[in-house]
């Protein structure tokens, strides 16, 4: 400590001595400098404080804004228009007749159910009364949020109660107390195309009827789609009413692949005598060289129809590539698609792809649609191992066969019935004999009992003992029975032997 003080005083001293040496000008400068130095500390913090205040206010407000953005999503809508151009595309709540849509918002993605993507489900119907209950049971089971599914039906040239039944079912599902059941907008369109072709199975799949039938079908599909597709639909799902079995998650399952057009494999169950199951939809196929060469030779209006010997195309069909134990997510590029269950992005249809009601590259309807989608460079994909099951409707041949089988069955049943009756008769006749024998046996037993009673009475009289008969009655039944039987056997003679014989036969 003392040394410290000493050095301090020493420095002080040297300092003053140095000061004395500087010139008056320098001194003057020094004073000015000192003044500046003294002045600066006052100004700087003031500036810094102001800056700090600003900084603090800014940071507080940004933090508040961020928190508010996180807490209230509605706040985002307030901010975003000023940032983006979407302000231009907003509906004015006061003008109900003007609507704005940005098609970029209806592109369709792999997880549409999370992004509230709307699906338009199109179902063409004709004389489908019998299939409706089954169809609606499928509809109710869909796991895709029902409110996001808009339904569109086209009822054409129906002679049965399809329309009435359809409306009944629809009104029921819309009035369902379960808030998850009702669907989005529902349009039922009635339009007749004057279809001459009957809708029964034989006619429907007959080769000659195919081309014109499919052109009419295509027309119906186009009318349905063009009238009901709206700018807010991201997906379009085409579904036939006569699907018997399909997973309730089918929309999500197909959507997950995020393809422009996607179809599952379609099979149908068959009665056991026909093999149990069969590929149904042969319209999903990959193009082959043979088919392209064949198409070259045909005239402008010809339509190649798959699955008939007349046109051997040697195309790989989705249906035949099914492996029941295969990975259901396996994809296969295809060119023609079947119409039983198609999921497509709405932009495919918006771009112009439709179901050609004319011969487009020698194809019509859904196969033509597949070709057109390919032409527009959209991805068209089938899932060979993801199978849905079409209803089995027996054809005329099948029906004949079934009739024959039914006859056979009836015959067989009649035979069996006869058999049973005969057996019954036989056993009944035996039963009679048995009864006789029982009667005989009883009679014999009675006789034996009478005899033994007489004997016992005689013995009692002879011995006059009290214990013996008691003992006898205690042990008696078995011993006596044996005795009695033995006696009866001895005495019974012929009838007894006969009875034994029957017994033996019965045992055998």
């Amino acid at each position, binding site marked *: 400590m003392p040394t410290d003080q000493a050095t301090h005083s020493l420095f002080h001293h040297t300092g003053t001595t140095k000061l004395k040496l500087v010139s008056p000008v320098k001194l003057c400068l020094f004073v000015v400098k000192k003044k500046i130095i003294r002045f600066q500390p006052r100004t700087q913090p003031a500036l810094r404080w102001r800056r700090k205040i600003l900084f603090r206010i800014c940071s507080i407000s940004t933090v508040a804004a961020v928190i508010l953005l996180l807490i209230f999503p509605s706040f985002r809508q307030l901010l975003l228009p000023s940032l983006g151009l979407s302000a231009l595309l907003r509906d004015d709540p006061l003008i109900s007749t*003007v609507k704005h849509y940005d*098609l970029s918002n209806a592109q369709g993605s792999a997880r549409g159910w999370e992004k509230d993507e709307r699906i338009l489900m199109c179902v063409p119907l004709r004389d489908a009364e019998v299939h409706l209950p089954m169809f609606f049971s499928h509809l109710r089971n869909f796991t895709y949020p029902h409110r996001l599914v808009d339904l569109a039906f086209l009822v054409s040239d129906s002679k049965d109660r399809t329309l009435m039944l359809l409306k009944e079912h629809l009104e029921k599902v819309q009035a369902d107390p379960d808030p998850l059941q009702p669907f989005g907008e529902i349009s039922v369109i009635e339009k007749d195309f004057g279809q001459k072709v009957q809708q029964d199975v034989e006619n429907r799949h007959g080769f000659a009827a195919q081309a014109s039938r499919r052109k009419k079908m295509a027309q119906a599909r186009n009318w349905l789609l063009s009238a009901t597709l709206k700018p807010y639909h991201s997906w379009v799902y085409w579904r036939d009413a006569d699907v018997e079995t399909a997973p309730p998650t089918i929309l999500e399952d197909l959507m997950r692949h995020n393809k422009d057009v996607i179809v599952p494999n379609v099979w149908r169950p068959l009665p056991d005598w026909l093999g149990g199951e069969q590929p149904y939809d042969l319209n999903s196929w990959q193009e082959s060289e043979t088919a392209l060469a064949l198409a070259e030779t045909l005239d402008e209006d010809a339509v190649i129809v798959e699955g008939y010997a007349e046109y051997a195309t040697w195309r790989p069909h989705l249906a035949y590539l099914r492996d029941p134990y295969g990975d259901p997510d396996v994809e296969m590029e295809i060119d023609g698609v079947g119409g039983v269950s198609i999921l497509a992005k709405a932009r495919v249809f918006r771009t112009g792809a439709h179901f050609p*009601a004319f011969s487009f590259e020698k194809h019509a309807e859904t196969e033509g649609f597949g070709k057109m989608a390919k032409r527009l460079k959209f991805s068209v994909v089938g899932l060979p191992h993801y199978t849905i099951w079409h209803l089995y409707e027996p054809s005329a041949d099948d029906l004949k066969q079934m009739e024959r089988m039914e006859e056979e069955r009836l015959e067989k049943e009649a035979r069996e019935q006869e058999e049973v009756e005969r057996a019954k008769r036989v056993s009944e006749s035996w039963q009679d004999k048995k009864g006789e024998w029982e009667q005989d046996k009883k009679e014999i037993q009675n006789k034996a009992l009478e005899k033994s009673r007489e004997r016992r009475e005689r013995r009692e009289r002879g011995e006059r003992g009290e214990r013996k008969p008691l003992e006898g009655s205690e042990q008696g039944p078995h011993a006596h029975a044996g005795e009695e039987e033995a006696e009866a056997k001895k005495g019974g003679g012929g009838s007894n032997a006969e009875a034994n014989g029957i017994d033996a036969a019965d045992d055998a």
Partner: protein
Amino acid sequence: MARPLRRSSPITLILALVLFLGFIIFILSPSNPVPSIPKSKIASSSSTRTSPNSPPPVVHYYLNNLTTSSDPVGNRERVLVLTPVARFYDEYWQNLLKLSYPRDLIELGFIVPKTREGNTALAKLEDAVRRVQTGSKKHRFLGVTIIRQDFDTPVPQNEKERHALSAQKERREAMSRARNSLLYTTLGTETAWVLWLDADIIETPHTLIQDLASHDKAVIVPNCYQRYTDKGKEKTRPYDFNSWHDSETALAMARKMGSDEIILEGYHEMATYRSLMAYEMTEGGDPHLETELDGVGGTALLVKAEVHRDGAMFPPFPFYNLIETEGFAKMARRLGHQPYGLPNYLVYHYNE
């Protein structure tokens, strides 16, 4: 650090608090009515689409009763006027407003590209539409749908580049996409007629719809001309060359072409020798004169809705080596609908 905080605390904290509170009030006060606006918007714009309380009703449409006749006004037939908008011309809008067809039977549909130009056009269109639709009820259109397309338009739409042969295919493919996107999202269950009217058609007779419909043809197209001034004199010249009758030369050209090539009209490099409706106009001729066409232009085009419903669209790919409206005419013919033209019935295109 501690000193400036202590020193500035009264001013800073009060200021910060006041600002923060003000900020919160500013944010919260509009946020209460704001959510209700989108809600009411949804409820009104899409009827019952998202209201969970009452599921949408089942709506039944009888398309068998839908007529498209030569007397559209008498039969109360709805007309959908569709316009792909790249630029907004006030003359177009004024002309549209002058159409004498009852406005309660007219629905308008517009599609704008996803570009800056598209946005400027959209802003102007918005403005024009708002003025009419907030005006007296009698003069309002039945409905207006404005759509922004979901794909990019390849070429900037100025006159020179637009007509370059090399750019034509791409441009017209995009145009087809735009037309189809617009058509298939606006075509409703009750639409009877579709009038395609380009945004640069600035002068038509006021009875355009009635006149064209009176011919009762599936597809009918007027002759499209352009007014210009040459040495101070007002003159007209043919503009749209896409309406034509096919020629053997063109058909032979198509046969030789690959399936991805297209034939275009009005280019020296490609002499098709088709007879063009643009040159079939006779001064003072009968405006009701009809002529069968093989290709049609889309500047003004009246189509029965059933033609589009059957599937006739604007092919965005070479269809019989034809594209867009010309391809549409071919597709309509494939579906059994014959297009017709009116060589002496004129509409006028904007002069750039």
